[in-house]
């Protein structure tokens, strides 16, 4: 019996916690499928951004097409789709999963299941994916494969008895995984003669090709010169190129048909016009409905970004525009701060997304940035029944105009060794968490569920969690809605002037402590001046904390070093230069480090 191309296709992804061996297994699969010689192998082909590699996570999904000659003698087409592993990119993950029929679940034989894995597995099950469990790192002395299998069965509720025991690092038992993929993951369905429905699961901007849309054809076919329509926006484009991804390269093909994974280019200038989750259809023979599940992703976390050197404002704008070409989730608009001058209020999917953008701006675009404290979007219900969505604390209306405020709340799942349950519960309590429940995964580990205000986790929750559990806890969250909350705006006054860039919104019960900590920190960061400088934290007109920077008493060089005027001059010039880099707030010069330091208080 001859199998059709569709029947010989397997579209799948790999789900794993960071460090559990996803990239290594992907490399092994690529190697075993024999399309590449060892020499051509890049270290980790799927992680092709430096940044990703350093962080040990993948930011942008990508896919690779492989050919595997199975034990039954058939050549199968494997489309391995990579998924980002972090909660900030949950939506992207869900779209990647929607492009697959199955998922290889990699569990570390020594460490078992982690929160992130769990979240992604549930997501995969929601998408009806066939889960193929694999126990990795069996070469480790601390490996306990039986325990890992039991966890998979108990927690996820899928059979794991036959899960291949492998070591991706040592290349042990990889064939078993490949055979499982052939046998257990269903081939794709879909009628290639129906009107085109292609799911965009990733979209990147390339300066030569324009936007490259990574797609999974659900129905119909797509080929060069075809007029296509993006179903969410109605925008139309003409296809320039159709192809598949070989490891590390684009391979141009004539067409892609139902069940295929590949890419198209169509002179699309901006990833905004090729949004992840959107459905591409044939403009001349359109599908009646788009594929389900599309949503426009909205930023959850905002912060102000300012160039350290005011003259670099335009450079910052250009850099943000360039990043946006590739990142539809990044939003920004010009903003003006008394303390920091001209900059941008930028919105991100989450904290990690924010950090990545910040880092890319600094590293790839060589910009020195001053960032304000991150803020979530608050809903301000005014007395005139107007509702404002507030992302910048300085825009908060006068308290007399506010009826009440709401803040976003997330459901957080924290997997933690039992010995740390107490300290994690304490942390969640401190962060105004509402205990929802606890389940034991096994004797030594439990999953804690809490509802937490988002603004309590955007600063340093993850760091605090790590430090209180010596790095053993893992954490995942999703937005569940808004709740009314007793929030206040905390202002910081330096020499009796409000520093707008330091204002933030905080729960009333937390205001005193945060205000005190910030004042203490600023006292260390702001150099002494000729006069005494009070640093105050205030809610409205009420001062809740105060520190004082005493006046500068001494700044004089006793000696002239035997006629070495140059040395003295250099010292004075350095002093003058340092002053130039400071921000003037009233008559006080504040170093940039002061703005940054209040972001990390613990």
């Amino acid at each position, binding site marked *: 019996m001859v199998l059709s191309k569709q029947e010989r296709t397997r579209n799948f992804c790999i789900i794993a916690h960071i460090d559990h061996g996803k990239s290594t297994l992907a490399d092994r699969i690529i190697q075993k499928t024999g399309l590449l010689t060892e020499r051509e192998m890049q270290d980790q082909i799927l992680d092709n951004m430096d940044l990703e590699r350093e962080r040990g996570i993948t930011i942008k999904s990508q896919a690779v097409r492989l050919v595997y000659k199975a034990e039954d003698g058939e050549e199968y087409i494997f489309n391995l789709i990579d998924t980002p592993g972090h909660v900030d990119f949950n939506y992207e993950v869900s779209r990647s999963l929607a492009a697959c029929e199955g998922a290889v679940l990699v569990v570390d034989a020594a460490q078992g299941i982690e929160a992130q894995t769990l979240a992604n597995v549930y997501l995969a099950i929601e998408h009806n994916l066939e889960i193929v469990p694999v126990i990795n790192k069996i070469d480790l002395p601390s490996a306990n494969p039986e325990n890992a299998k039991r966890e998979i069965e108990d927690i996820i509720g899928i059979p794991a008895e036959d899960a291949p025991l492998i070591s991706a690092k040592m290349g042990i038992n990889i064939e078993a995984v490949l055979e499982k993929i052939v046998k257990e993951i269903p081939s794709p369905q879909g009628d290639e003669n129906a009107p085109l429905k292609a799911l965009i699961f990733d979209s990147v901007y390339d300066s030569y090709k324009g936007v490259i849309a990574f797609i999974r054809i659900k129905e119909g076919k797509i080929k060069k010169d075809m007029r296509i329509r993006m179903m969410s926006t109605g925008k139309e484009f003409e296809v320039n190129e159709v192809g598949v991804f070989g490891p590390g390269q684009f391979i141009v093909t004539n067409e892609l048909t139902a069940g295929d994974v590949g890419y198209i280019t169509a002179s699309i200038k901006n990833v905004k016009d090729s949004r992840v989750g959107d459905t591409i259809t044939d403009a001349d023979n359109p599908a009646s409905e788009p594929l389900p599940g599309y949503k426009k992703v909205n930023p959850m976390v905002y912060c102000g970004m300012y160039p350290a050197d005011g003259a670099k404002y335009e450079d910052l704008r250009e850099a943000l525009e360039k990043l946006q070409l590739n990142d539809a989730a990044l939003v920004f608009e010009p903003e003006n701060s008394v303390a920091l001058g001209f900059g941008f209020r930028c919105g991100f999917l989450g904290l990690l997304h924010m950090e990545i953008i910040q880092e890319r701006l600094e590293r790839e675009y060589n910009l020195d940035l001053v960032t304000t404290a991150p803020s979530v979007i608050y809903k301000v219900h005014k007395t005139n029944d107007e509702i404002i969505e507030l992302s910048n604390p300085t825009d908060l209306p006068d308290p007399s105009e506010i009826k009440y405020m709401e803040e976003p709340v997330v459901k957080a799942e924290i997997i933690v060794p039992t010995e740390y349950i107490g300290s994690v519960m304490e942390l969640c309590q401190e962060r105004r968490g509402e205990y929802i429940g606890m389940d034991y995964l096994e004797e030594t580990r439990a999953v804690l569920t809490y509802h937490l205000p988002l603004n309590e986790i955007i600063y340093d929750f993850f760091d605090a969690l790590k430090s209180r559990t010596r790095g053993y806890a893992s954490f995942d969250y999703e937005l569940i809605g808004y709740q009314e909350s007793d929030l206040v705006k905390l202002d910081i006054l330096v020499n009796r002037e409000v520093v707008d860039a330091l204002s933030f919104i905080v729960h009333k019960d937390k205001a005193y402590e945060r205000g005190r900590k910030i004042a203490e920190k600023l006292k260390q960061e702001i150099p002494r001046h*000729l006069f005494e400088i009070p640093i105050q934290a205030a809610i409205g007109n009420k001062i809740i904390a105060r520190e004082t920077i005493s006046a*500068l*008493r*001494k*700044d*004089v*060089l*006793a*000696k*002239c*070093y*035997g*006629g*070495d*005027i*140059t040395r003295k*001059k250099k*010292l*004075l*010039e350095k*002093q*003058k230069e340092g*002053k130039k880099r400071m921000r003037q707030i009233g008559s006080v010069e504040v170093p940039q480090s002061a703005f940054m330091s209040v972001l990390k208080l613990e």
Partner: protein
Amino acid sequence: MDKCVGLYIHIPFCKAKCYYCDFTSFDNQNEKMAPYVFALCEEIKQYGEILQDRQVDTIFIGGGTPTVLPLALLEKILKNLKENFKIESSFEFTVESNPGTLNKELLYLLKEYRVNRLSMGLQATQNKILKSLGRIHSLEDFYNNYHLARQMGYQNINVDLIFSLPDQTKKEWADTLKYIIKSEPEHISCYSLIIEENSYFGRLKKEGKLKEASDELDRELYHYARKILTENKYHHYEISNFSKKGFESRHNMNCWKYKPYVGMGLGAHSFINGQRYHNSYNLDKYIQSQGKIESIKEEIESIPLTMQYGEYIFLGLRLTEGISIKDFESQFNISFHALFGEKVKKLIEEGLLIKKQDRIQLSLKGLDLANIVFAEFLP
């Protein structure tokens, strides 16, 4: 006026390096003293020719410790100076010394070559403090040699003191000052301790092992010194310097008043013909070059005009009499007010500067915060 020049001779050797010192000086290179002096004398000869049209008015032999040299080597230097420059008895001719390195023969030799000002680095009068600074002498060494010098007719003696030393109490500083006032030297320098990165103290500080005086204490000690010394007829004429009337250090005045000087020897700095430069800091290189001035000159800097204004002002403001606007204007032929009127006004408002007729000077507060004032005048 420009025809005058001050000479500085550097001797980069010490018996032991003091813990606060990062100056060009070695305590383990005694075998290089002779070749060094040879090279130095060659340099002196060359400058003798270059400067033959100039009138030398001060000579300062500093270090290091000039008096650590064997007598014969020291004499060679003095002899060369005498042969290459016309040394008048009206000169100020200073030799720096460590109280632990003085003796009758040496003082006699200096006298013979018309050295008329002796500078003694005492620093403090408590032996335990001296030890904690890595000084090689005791108070008794100072006492004996100070009086020996007096007996031998030295009528202009400077004593260097340091305050804000680690663990130094207010009383210890007061005792040091009282002791010195009783000894009646003509000149007293009181330096606030600077922790230099490249000194032993600097390394201790980096390791968090140095107990520094607070700025508040430092200023208290400084103003105490000011008060007690002026009460005892010492004129506070420069940030760190005090003298009996007419005994201001002319050599240092040259520097503060923007007059030219030429430095000879390792790492010595020069300011002449609108240029600043210094000799190499590398002892072996200096010796090998045999004193050829063109091969040891480094970092020659022609000072742009705006920088000259700044330098003139910040150096001049170190003197308590400050600067004369008229002098500034005749030196540079430009309106002081147009250049710095706004800045001066602001600094006066901040209480850092005082204007007295034609002169601008540091206020008492300005003495404590002089760097802030100085930085304002740099381009």
